[in-house]
């Protein structure tokens, strides 16, 4: 091969973000404890994890906003934090907290933000109509930020992140606090972006969001990646195919003073399910073939039950536990 095709091949293979052995410590507290990640150009990759799992810290390290305690980061092919400023030319960011400029109109927000990328006013002004259209905010061009709804602010923040036409778009919990309509619109826009070749990296703790958007995802907890793959692969690899949720009263013979679904589970669940757990008033049975259990349940009195395919939330709870993260 000659030099030119090799260069083109390298370009096509270049990862928009590559992280190796990332660690970040605050005092004795290791928030990120060895994360490896390699985004493929044009995919949507989702970091899924409970609060405090290290998602935001990982993003801050990737952008060069905080110095890692260990590991290597290549953003847009450049070493971070050393050349983070240059690398961020190719990246758009939608932060967790809205930080639009309250003193400006929608259009002014885009203009002022574009200048931070060294774009001249004519270039930005030419892009503003398409950005506002993308965000569905054409009629809000000259509206003040205070007059926008939460969903509109998110969409404007998304448009602002695209002002430099980034190769990689990073979103930190983009739909937290939005109503269903607003969430669906954001999802639609993100799909449109990946279809057009933009790589998307997003964090979320919403399973449906990850399942819907992610080409690949990783589940994070306590600064470590617990599993990685496509949503289907992760579900298939980590958990039984079927879930039966059992709750309500039970008139069978109870032992050790337990009652209801818990008593039933202790007496029978082990015989049908490969794995089960009781949380509150509900017994969750994980199994590959639910038919025998369903037949058994049909004969019980007082119990109520629900059968469904296993989903990402089951995997998530299996891997990260059911304890509250406050």
């Amino acid at each position: 091969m000659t030099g030119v095709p090799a260069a083109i091949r390298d370009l096509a293979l270049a990862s928009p973000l590559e992280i190796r052995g990332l660690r970040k410590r605050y005092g004795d507290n290791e928030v990120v404890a060895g994360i490896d990640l390699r985004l493929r150009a044009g995919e949507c990759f989702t970091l899924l994890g409970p609060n405090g799992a290290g998602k935001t810290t990982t993003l801050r390290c990737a952008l060069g906003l905080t110095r890692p305690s260990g590991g290597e980061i290549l953003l847009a092919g450049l070493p971070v934090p050393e050349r983070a400023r240059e690398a961020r030319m190719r990246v758009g960011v939608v932060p967790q907290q809205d930080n639009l400029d309250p003193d400006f109109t929608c259009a002014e927000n885009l203009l002022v933000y574009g200048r931070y990328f060294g774009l001249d006013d004519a270039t930005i002004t030419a892009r503003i109509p398409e950005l506002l259209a993308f965000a569905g905010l054409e009629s809000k061009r000259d509206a003040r930020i205070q007059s926008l709804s939460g969903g509109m602010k998110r969409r404007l923040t998304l448009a602002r992140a695209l002002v430099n036409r980034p190769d990689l778009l990073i979103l930190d919990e983009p739909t937290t606090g939005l109503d269903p309509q607003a969430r669906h619109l954001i999802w639609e826009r993100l799909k449109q972006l990946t279809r057009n070749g933009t790589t998307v990296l997003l964090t979320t703790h919403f399973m449906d969001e990850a399942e819907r958007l992610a080409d690949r995802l990783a589940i994070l907890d306590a600064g470590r990646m617990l599993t990685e793959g496509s949503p289907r692969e992760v579900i298939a690899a980590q958990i039984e195919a079927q879930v039966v949720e059992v709750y309500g009263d039970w008139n069978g013979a109870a032992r050790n003073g337990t009652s209801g679904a818990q008593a039933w589970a202790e007496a029978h669940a082990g015989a049908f399910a490969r794995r089960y757990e009781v949380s509150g008033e509900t017994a969750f049975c994980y199994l590959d073939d639910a038919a025998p259990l369903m037949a058994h349940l049909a004969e019980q009195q007082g119990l109520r039950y629900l059968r469904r395919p296993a989903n990402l939330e089951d995997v998530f709870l299996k891997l990260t536990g059911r304890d509250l993260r406050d």
Partner: protein
Amino acid sequence: MATIPLRSTFRAPRLSRRFVPVWQRNFLVWRKLALPSVLGNLADPMIYLFGLGFGIGMLVPEIGGVSYISFLAAGMVCSSTMNSASFEVLYSSFSRMHVQRTWDAIMNAPVELDDIVFAELVWAASKALLSGVAILGVIVVFGLVDSRYVLWLLPLIFLIGLSFGALGLVMTSVAPSYDFFMYYFTLFITPMTLLSGVFFPAEQLPAAVQAAASLLPLAHAVELARPLLLGKLPDDILLHLAVLAAYGVGGFWVALGLTRRRLLG
């Protein structure tokens, strides 16, 4: 945070032209409220200048061969420049850094924190200059001063703005809330105003207090501004400029280090 060694927190500022769009952002906000802003900044020094100038001027016919109000004019220009720059980097910069999270948004673009803090400093000096020009205008129009060297006041006002902007940014970098700034004004700015020859010649003070006052940046600002506004060239120009510049550079360096520790930990 503890993970960043001191050496790296207080490393030399790394500046680029990217501070310009951050300055422009602040200017664009100011332009929307320019008239009330200038009038607001003008009102306070004018009330002092004419109130004290005429009131005390009746009791004190002359200081060093000029009327009290002419003596006071230079003090008012310097102290209102100091106040204007201080207010900007305390309350407004703190809003942008901590409340509105504007700096976070900017740092996601290819702009470093160093550029942002520098832009805030230059902007505070620019805003002080905009207010200072208005005050100078009034002073000249009312014929209170000898306007021979009045244009030299413009770079001087800008420098005073940089010095106090940098000192204020140190406060901002460690402030937990707006209330914190009250201490700075009560314990530093107000006593300094009284000791630096703004209202009366510093020679009136006991020798020990005079010596302490000679370390204050405002005293050096007044030593430069007063002769210039009375049509004379100041003594020890380089010394006074060096003190103001040192406060500016030193303050900026410390403020940047503390801000890095606060935001990039």
